[in-house]
């Protein structure tokens, strides 16, 4: 008697679990369907367009790798390399300058300072785009406040140049560095430094042999993330420089809107595909690094 009751119980529990599972599956369906439509469709269209070319006379389309080769040649290649260079330089500088700042914040004993810097970093890392561009135009542009006060133009300063863009990009990349590195720096145990000190290590030796090796995955991960963020940025550059610095995002926008040459839409799609490949590579490097660095934070 009791055993049947138990069996009934088990059966109903299993059924509940099964019902739950199917219900869980149902709740996921709208999300997946939406992503397939709103994200998958454009992605497939981009992929398809990157490999098609249309004959202007007959209107017939055919598959080709010509767009991709065109996207890796001439002005487009210059733009792609320009983007890679700008992103690499700003990411490197951001990591270099952000690390001491993050360390200063982490080791500070004033809680208020820590919270203020971290909240400000959250704001500034999000303060990309158009407002950032205009703040710098007002500061260091041709008619900017600092430019006029110190006569920077006569000394060869130009905001609408490679280094001008680097300075602007650092404004959101350094806070991003602080946000990504703070957890890793917090993971450096005081005991490790004390142990190193007890064994007679100098601070330089401690950093070289203990702290940096532990931080390395996080640092590399941050670098990759910063690179990807700078690489994808468009709004800041578009609002600021127009096309005076060759960047792949600006080239895609020009080709899409037919500013330079008509009929370059498919090359724009091929360039987009190049960008996706670079961004995909970035993610493929970032995720394992993040997992590795997470080990030390446990």
């Amino acid at each position, binding site marked *: 008697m009791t055993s049947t009751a138990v069996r009934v119980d088990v059966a109903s529990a299993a059924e509940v679990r099964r019902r*739950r*599972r199917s*219900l*869980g599956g*149902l*709740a*996921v369906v*709208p*999300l*997946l369907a939406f*992503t397939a439509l*709103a*994200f998958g469709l*454009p992605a*497939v269209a*981009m992929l398809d367009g990157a490999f098609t070319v249309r004959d202007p006379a007959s209107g017939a389309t055919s598959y080709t790798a010509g767009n991709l080769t065109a996207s890796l040649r001439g002005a487009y290649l210059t733009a792609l390399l320009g983007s890679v260079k700008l992103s690499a330089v700003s990411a490197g500088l951001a990591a270099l300058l952000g690390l*001491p*700042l993050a360390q*200063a914040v982490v*080791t500070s004993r004033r809680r208020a300072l820590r919270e203020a810097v*971290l*909240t*400000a970093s*959250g*704001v*500034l*890392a*999000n*303060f*990309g*785009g*158009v*407002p950032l561009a205009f*703040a710098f135009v*007002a*500061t260091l542009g041709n008619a900017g*406040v*600092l430019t006029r006060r110190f006569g920077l133009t006569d000394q060869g300063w130009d905001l609408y140049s490679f280094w001008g863009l680097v300075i602007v990009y650092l*404004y959101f990349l*350094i806070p991003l560095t602080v*946000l990504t590195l703070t957890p890793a720096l917090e993971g450096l145990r*005081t005991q490790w430094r*004390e142990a190193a000190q007890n064994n007679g290590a100098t601070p330089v030796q401690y950093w070289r042999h203990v702290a940096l090796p532990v931080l390395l995955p996080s640092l590399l991960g941050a670098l990759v993330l*910063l690179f990807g*963020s700078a690489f*994808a*940025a*468009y*709004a800041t550059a*578009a609002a600021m420089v127009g096309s005076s610095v060759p960047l792949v*995002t600006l080239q895609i*926008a020009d080709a*899409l*809107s037919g500013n330079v040459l008509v009929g370059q839409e498919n090359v*724009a*799609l091929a360039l*987009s*595909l190049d*960008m*996706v490949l670079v961004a995909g590579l970035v993610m493929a490097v970032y995720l394992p690094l993040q997992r590795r660095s997470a080990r030390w934070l446990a």
Partner: protein
Amino acid sequence: MARLNPWRWPVLGLAGLYFLTPLAASVVFTLDVPGQGVTFDAYTQIFSTDGFGSSLLLSLELAVATIAVVLLLTVPAMVALRLGAPRLRPVVEVVCSLPLVVPPIAFVAGIGTVLKWGPEHLSRTPLFQTLVAIQNPGFPVVLVLAYVVMALPFVFRALDAGLRSVDVPTLVEAARSCGAGRRQALVRVVLPNLRGALLNASFLTLALVLGEFTVAQLLGFQPFAVWIVNVSGAQAQLSVAVSVLSLLVTWALLLVLAGFGGRTRTASRG
């Protein structure tokens, strides 16, 4: 360890200088116009300038719609994953993270291609009407679709962090033992426990939509960020003034968020 680091204050000072100078200079730029002396014109003009009200309203409408859609899609799915379909979790995680691999400019290139199919291939089918309808300049639904996709990675992370700190199955079982229906358990027990995560996700989405420029500009719509750029050619002071104001608003929003849910953790944005 407890010794003072002499380099800490110079580092913090230099950082403060670098981060505060553009903001201070922007304020000076808008108030002290060459040839006119100190004037508040740039700020008083904002409200009377053509397009300010309509573009800001459009951005806010888009933000509200995007937040509603993205939460309606993700919250039930992620709660369900916690309740009974853990095997689908990796799938959902990958799907929600995929938009990170496609930069906004590449995404909009793809959207533009899809929208062009309308006049080219589908002009005699009802789908064509749909494609036209979602591009209505008064309320471009296509932007909502794009923004939902772009917000997915951030919303997923915010909700995932919130769900991690809540034992959803136990909560639901406790509610059901107390006689609550399934819907009641979700709406009155689970959702209130996720308040912080929901707010976090909403604010991140709001900041994303209000600042979004790439997709809107290339599809030819004029929400707030695009309007600032369009107006900057004629009125430099005005565009900087609006930028300063929009920064202050973002700042206030994120501080509110920080006040609600502890420290803000944000992710990068193109």
